[in-house]
């Protein structure tokens, strides 16, 4: 299991993260739960296009760094799917292909998470690695482990704890209608223990806060440290006397990647590019839109068919995006890339 650590910036700024967390605990009702879960869906989803841009820019998709990023994307999608199941369990329909929910790039992560960060769509580079590292960075100093301890510190983990706490207090009726299980959403929220297990999984895999580079019971490094290995071009080799991670191990190869340029605000426009390039760019947007429409249909109808089609759409998008990434914008300007626009 992988763990994502909470950044210090995040802890300090999380009171801006969401007015929801300011809401008195005793007044958190089903409407609160709905908004909180929808926020969670949006936040998880927002990191996927930037991660996919970095992933798909790597020429050899079998490279260990590609495998690492793909793993992160899969876990973010799993978290999103579990949050969608939770939303569906309380009788709501997650908003996935809603223009208000789809982030625009460059831009902040939705909901006020990491307000200091501007996330762009670009190929894998040290600059994009810096952003990923910031997203995954662990907290320094003392880390609150429980919401009570963390009063005044509002971490992502605390956010999910707040959601869990509300489930435990309200004990709402949970319906399995329209929930989905499959390779990207293998848990169904049928009762409170299932919700607890799902949140534990999300927190453990990505949003928790323990102070160790190695994931519990495995020899795998948490995402943060793996990205640092690529940044330092050397493997993690232990901690120094102050407990800080040291990267003096074997060399890590930075994978060959297409120099996908940062997609400009609003994405590439028709007038700015050639016909051939526009065909690919528009094609990517169409496929991305189709992907979101299919994911929306999954939870609207509780139907596995669009889920199956969505998986294939993802692969189609990968193919189109990588074709685009091979095209130069102009000398010195880098290459094109997908805009992830909802049409």
């Amino acid at each position, binding site marked *: 299991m992988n763990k994502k650590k909470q950044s210090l910036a995040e802890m300090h700024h999380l009171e801006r993260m969401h007015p929801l967390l300011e809401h008195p605990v005793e007044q958190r009702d089903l409407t609160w739960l709905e908004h909180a879960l929808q926020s969670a869906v949006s936040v998880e989803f927002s990191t996927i296009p930037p991660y996919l841009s970095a992933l798909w820019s790597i020429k050899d998709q079998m490279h260990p760094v590609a*495998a690492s990023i793909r793993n992160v994307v899969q876990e973010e999608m799993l978290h999103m799917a579990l949050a969608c199941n939770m939303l569906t369990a309380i009788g709501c329909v997650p908003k996935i292909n809603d223009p208000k929910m789809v982030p625009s790039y460059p831009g902040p992560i939705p909901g006020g998470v990491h307000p200091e960060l501007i996330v762009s769509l670009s190929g894998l580079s040290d600059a994009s690695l810096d952003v990923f590292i910031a997203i995954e960075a662990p907290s320094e100093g003392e880390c609150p482990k429980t919401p009570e301890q963390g009063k005044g510190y509002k971490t992502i983990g605390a956010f999910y704890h707040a959601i869990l706490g509300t489930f435990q207090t309200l004990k709402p009726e949970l319906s399995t209608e329209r929930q989905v299980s499959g390779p990207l959403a293998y848990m169904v929220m049928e009762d409170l223990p299932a919700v607890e297990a799902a949140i534990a999984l999300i927190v453990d895999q990505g949003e928790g806060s323990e102070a160790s580079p190695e994931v519990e019971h495995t020899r795998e490094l948490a995402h943060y440290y793996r990205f640092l290995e690529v940044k330092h071009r050397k493997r993690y080799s232990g901690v120094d006397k102050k407990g800080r991670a040291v990267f003096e191990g074997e060399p890590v190869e930075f994978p060959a990647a297409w120099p996908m340029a940062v997609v400009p605000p609003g994405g590439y426009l028709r007038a700015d590019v050639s016909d051939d390039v526009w065909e690919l760019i528009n094609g990517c947007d169409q496929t991305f839109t189709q992907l979101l429409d299919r994911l929306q249909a999954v939870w609207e109808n509780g139907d596995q068919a669009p889920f199956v089609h969505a998986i294939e759409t993802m692969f189609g998008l990968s193919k189109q995006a990588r074709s685009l990434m091979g095209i130069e914008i102009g000398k010195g300007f880098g290459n094109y890339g997908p805009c992830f626009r909802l049409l």
Partner: protein
Amino acid sequence: MIGGEVCKQQLASQLLPAEPRELTRAEIDGLWRIFVAIGTMWQNTVHDSAGLKSSWLEFLTSKTRIQPSYVAEYVNALEVVEELIKIYKETEAFEKLFLDNGIIPADSLDTRLAHAKHFVVDEFIRVQIVAGGFKNFIRPQQNPEIRPDNIVNYNGFIAGSRFNRIKPVRPYEEPSK
């Protein structure tokens, strides 16, 4: 033969003809009851098959919204089950339906009971197994629907990308020297 007048009523062996349509809420609930009973009978699901529902719903949709439509078979099955439950009470009714009929040859489906068993129960069993019900026969000691590392696969089950960290099948481990 089990059942009463409804079960024993004679029918031709072929699929009952029907126009495609959306099933009603009541029909879906009634068919779901049959599906859940399969998991109960063979004790191979948790959460009353909730984890298999999205697959089952998709199957149901694909069988009723286009030709050849199974709508008439599903309506028939609901009436057969209703009669069986009236006569035997629920647990015993499903036990008899599932265990007392065996594999009925396709050219011998000459009663409403036989239709219900062949076109509905038998197909639901296949869906149940393929959608994840097989896991508990292979890893009975584990909770198959919650533990994501319960690696085992079955033809028809979407195990996930072979490039995932969690492999979709039980891999061969080289013996340590």
